[in-house]
């Protein structure tokens, strides 16, 4: 039997990289970055090694929930163009293997975070995994068009967990970082849904574009982007903000709102004519937006720590 045939029959031995792909490395990168910012923005210093391994275990927890998501959603992933090359639909990893890896890494990451940092942060990580897998993946994703809105909370928890690693608790600043990612998630995914065509429709996922139509999705993107801008600029006046953050947030949010207005003003014919160029640009901008906003928080934390903030 040739390798090509065996891939389709699901009998090829999975490589290390296939198991790594189950952990959604790109999502893990976002988790690592935002948890790292949450950790450094906290007013309590953590030993660098403890901080580093804590962020690593938070990332492993995020990866574990990704594996459990792929196990549960294998039927959807097989239908959607964007996901059909993932390890399970591609026949590289068996669903049961993904399930076992997901559960094992979940327990492992929570226990190790508890031992490395504190048990509050570990409990928070356990709750995040539960929220992403049980609340979002198993329940909301297939039942409500608000799936992305509520499910987005799971992706918004990492900076709060990073903060909890340092302080052992939660605070207004942690909640603001949570709110930034929470409000950013819907416009980010709805822009993707607009240019992914009928992918979600084919998979029977009640995405907003399917249940409320594409016109309503454009309106929702604008509304959420405006609320996000208010929160992002408002955060500039809290302890995580400062002059650099405020200037960055102002520029980014003006840019982001302009992008959302462009999406709102477009008709489907306009979008089809240029193959969703504006929607694609907005999606890419959303990635740059979140990254830059958290870099600004990181810079403010650094300036604060070294006593430079007062000079600006």
């Amino acid at each position, binding site marked *: 039997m040739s390798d090509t045939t065996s891939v389709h029959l699901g009998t090829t031995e999975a490589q*290390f*990289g296939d198991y790594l792909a189950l952990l959604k490395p790109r999502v893990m990168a976002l988790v690592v970055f935002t948890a790292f910012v949450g950790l450094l923005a906290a007013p309590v210093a953590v*030993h660098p090694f*403890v901080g580093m391994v804590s962020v*690593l275990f938070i990332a492993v927890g995020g990866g574990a929930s990704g594996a459990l998501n792929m196990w549960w959603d294998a039927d959807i992933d097989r239908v959607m163009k964007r996901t059909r090359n993932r390890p399970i639909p591609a026949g590289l990893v068996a669903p049961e293997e993904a399930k076992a890896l997901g559960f094992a890494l979940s327990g492992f990451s929570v226990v190790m975070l508890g031992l490395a940092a504190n048990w509050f942060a570990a409990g928070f990580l356990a709750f995040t995994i539960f929220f992403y897998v049980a609340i979002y993946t198993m329940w909301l994703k297939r039942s409500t068009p608000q799936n992305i809105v509520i499910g987005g909370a799971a992706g918004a928890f990492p900076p709060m967990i990073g903060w909890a690693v340092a302080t052992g608790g939660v605070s207004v600043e942690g909640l603001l970082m949570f709110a930034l990612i929470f409000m950013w998630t819907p416009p980010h995914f709805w822009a993707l849904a607009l240019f992914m065509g009928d992918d979600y429709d084919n998979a029977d996922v009640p995405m907003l574009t399917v249940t409320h139509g594409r016109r309503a999705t454009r309106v929702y993107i604008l509304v959420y982007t405006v609320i996000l801008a208010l929160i992002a600029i408002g955060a500039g006046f809290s302890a995580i903000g400062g002059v650099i953050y405020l200037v960055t947030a102002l520029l980014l949010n003006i840019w982001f709102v302009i992008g959302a207005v462009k999406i709102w003003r477009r008709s489907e014919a306009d979008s089809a004519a240029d193959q969703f160029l504006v929607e694609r640009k907005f999606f890419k901008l959303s990635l740059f937006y979140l990254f830059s906003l958290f870099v600004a928080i990181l810079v403010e934390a650094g300036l604060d720590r070294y006593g430079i903030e007062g000079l600006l």
Partner: protein
Amino acid sequence: MSFRPDHELHKRRFGRNMGVGLVLVAFVAIVFGLTVVKVTNGDFGRAAAEVQG
């Protein structure tokens, strides 16, 4: 006497085994590092004092 040549299966599994091996080595290094940091920072001493009241 010569060793039998590797079966094709072993060649395919080599990368996977190597990956798992590196992960395990990294894990041992992390646990060792954490132990050193916690002992030198006196975390265990403080925990023991809390238990004794």
